[in-house]
């Protein structure tokens, strides 16, 4: 285990930021700490990095008790949401910083910087100042700088949070590829479930200072431990006694399937390739949300006021509204 967090707690006055956190992050993996803002995930990351101290508990990095070590002795790379590049230094100088602090020979520093700039595709910008780079380039620079000191773990705090959607998507894929290349144990914090599902090997869901669930993206999506995880990983709607995902609802224009729920289409919103329906169901206060592909919607010839019959798809992940702890899989 590369990082071992045991019983970590942190308070800010009355506010409990972290409450008895226990988690092991295996070597070489890409782990996401996922959760809503203010849930404690960034605090946990900063405690692992030593930028903040825990009130209780311990942190081991690569088998060494790092609880009391200052950040500069932990050999971790840290990447901030707002890049934290050194504005007065050139791109190359930024990357060289950690190596120069370690008093490595000049030739070695030069070679390493060139190698890293190559890796993050910034070679042609080596002599520019960070102010001449775009947001995405700055974040790649920050990554190269963190990797330069060959950290035992790489920690990223909402690394793509300040970038626009397009760049974020690109960098996300790029981070995944980079990780497959360099294989350094990586932990990144995000509040974007899509980002976590797409990039991470393992996801730790943190909410209100507590870990809700740890698992692979598939486990989390298919077998959410509770209502919160299910709701956080994607849209959730209610159909009769079940809570399930809007795309897990089958729509029919005739009462064919036994036990299906009749309703009336109140609203149909087209977003790109999908159609989002709001269906009023008698005897249920909140309307049911249904998502289906545009092709499917067209085939059914749906319009406002259409009568439809709804039923959960075979194999849908659903949680009983009455609060069953384990999700159940709807059988045919």
């Amino acid at each position, binding site marked *: 285990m590369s990082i071992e967090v045991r019983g970590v707690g942190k308070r800010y006055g009355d506010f409990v930021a972290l409450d008895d956190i226990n988690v092991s992050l295996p070597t070489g993996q890409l782990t996401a700490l996922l959760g809503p803002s203010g849930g404690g995930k960034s605090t946990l990351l900063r405690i692992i*990095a*030593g*930028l903040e101290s825990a009130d209780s508990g311990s942190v081991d990095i690569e088998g060494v008790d790092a609880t009391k070590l*200052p*950040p*500069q002795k*932990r*050999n*971790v*790379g*840290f990447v*901030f949401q*707002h890049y*934290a*590049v*050194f*504005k*007065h230094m050139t791109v190359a100088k930024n990357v060289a*910083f*950690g190596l120069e*602090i*370690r008093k490595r020979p000049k030739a070695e520093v030069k070679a390493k910087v060139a190698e890293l700039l190559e890796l993050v595709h910034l070679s042609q910008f080596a002599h520019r100042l960070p102010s001449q780079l775009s947001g995405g380039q700055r974040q790649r620079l*920050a990554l190269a*700088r*963190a990797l*330069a*000191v060959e950290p035992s773990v790489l920690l990223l705090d909402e690394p793509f949070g300040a970038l626009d959607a397009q760049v974020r998507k690109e960098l996300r894929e790029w981070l995944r590829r980079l990780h497959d290349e360099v294989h350094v144990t990586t932990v990144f914090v995000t509040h974007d479930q899509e980002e976590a599902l797409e990039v991470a090997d393992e996801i730790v869901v943190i909410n209100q200072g507590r870990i809700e669930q740890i698992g692979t993206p598939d486990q989390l999506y298919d077998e959410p431990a509770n209502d919160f995880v299910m709701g956080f990983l994607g849209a959730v709607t209610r159909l009769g006694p079940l809570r399930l995902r809007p795309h897990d609802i089958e729509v029919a224009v005739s009462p064919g399937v036994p036990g299906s729920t009749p309703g009336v289409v109140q609203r149909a919103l087209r977003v790109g390739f999908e159609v989002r329906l709001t269906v009023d169901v008698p005897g249920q206060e909140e309307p049911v949300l249904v998502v289906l592909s545009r092709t499917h919607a067209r085939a059914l010839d749906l319009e406002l006021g259409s009568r439809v019959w709804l039923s959960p798809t075979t194999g849908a992940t659903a949680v009983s509204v009455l609060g069953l702890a384990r999700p159940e899989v709807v059988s045919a």
Partner: protein
Amino acid sequence: MAETSLRARRGPVTYLLRTFVLAYLAVLVVWPLWEVASRTFAPLEQGAEAGLGAFLERLQDPSVTYAFGLTATCAFWAVVINTVFGVGISLLLTRYRFPGRRVLSVLVDIPMSVSPVVVGLALVLAYSSGQGWFGGVLESAGIFIIGSTPGMIMATAFVSLPLVIREVVPVLEEIGTDAELAASSLGANGWQTFRRITLPSIKWAVVYGVVLSLARSLGEFGAVKIVSPGAELRGETATILIQNRYTNFEEPTAYAAAFVLVLASVLALVVVSLIRKEDRS
């Protein structure tokens, strides 16, 4: 957009305002200073010589060179002390949370609001050998603060203390701690982080504060006057010299010294505006 439309509007009110502001500045600043300059080179007093040569000659009087030398010494040490402590206190105020932080922040501003004369009196009360709290102890150690150069340096430093801090604190707050934390996670210790990351970021604010402190220190009168013996060639700084000569009917020398101080502050203003430009680029 609003700003441009405001600037573009040119009615009678605009011209009236402009005339008023210019007249105000002329009456309050330009005309009096012009008088100092013209009296420097063309004194009205009987028997006083006019011209650049006479001006330079007056400045070469031993008591005048002594006074400017003393002013320079006081200003230099006060600025050195305030730069070191100013940056230190600024870091303390912005980078650490401790009980009494806000009190310290207010205390730092006191020299700006308290009259310099009061500052001088306070120093006398604390350090004079007769009645001062520390004076007796220091005297027995052979150190005299009041009535000597250290006391005048202290008075000058006290008065110009907030200038560096008030320039540096906002910049430190603006740049935040991310870059410093990044440096420490890359292996830099506290001093390395300060030297290589923090200091380059606040460089211009420090220089700006130093120039302001220097200008303030060169012109300090009230506080220094109280702690200084204030006699010719004995604790007489440039400002005290101006006062003494003026009251002793040696106005031409007073004007000459005053003109040099005006030149110094104009120079400081030019430097400051150049720094501003540099800082923005």
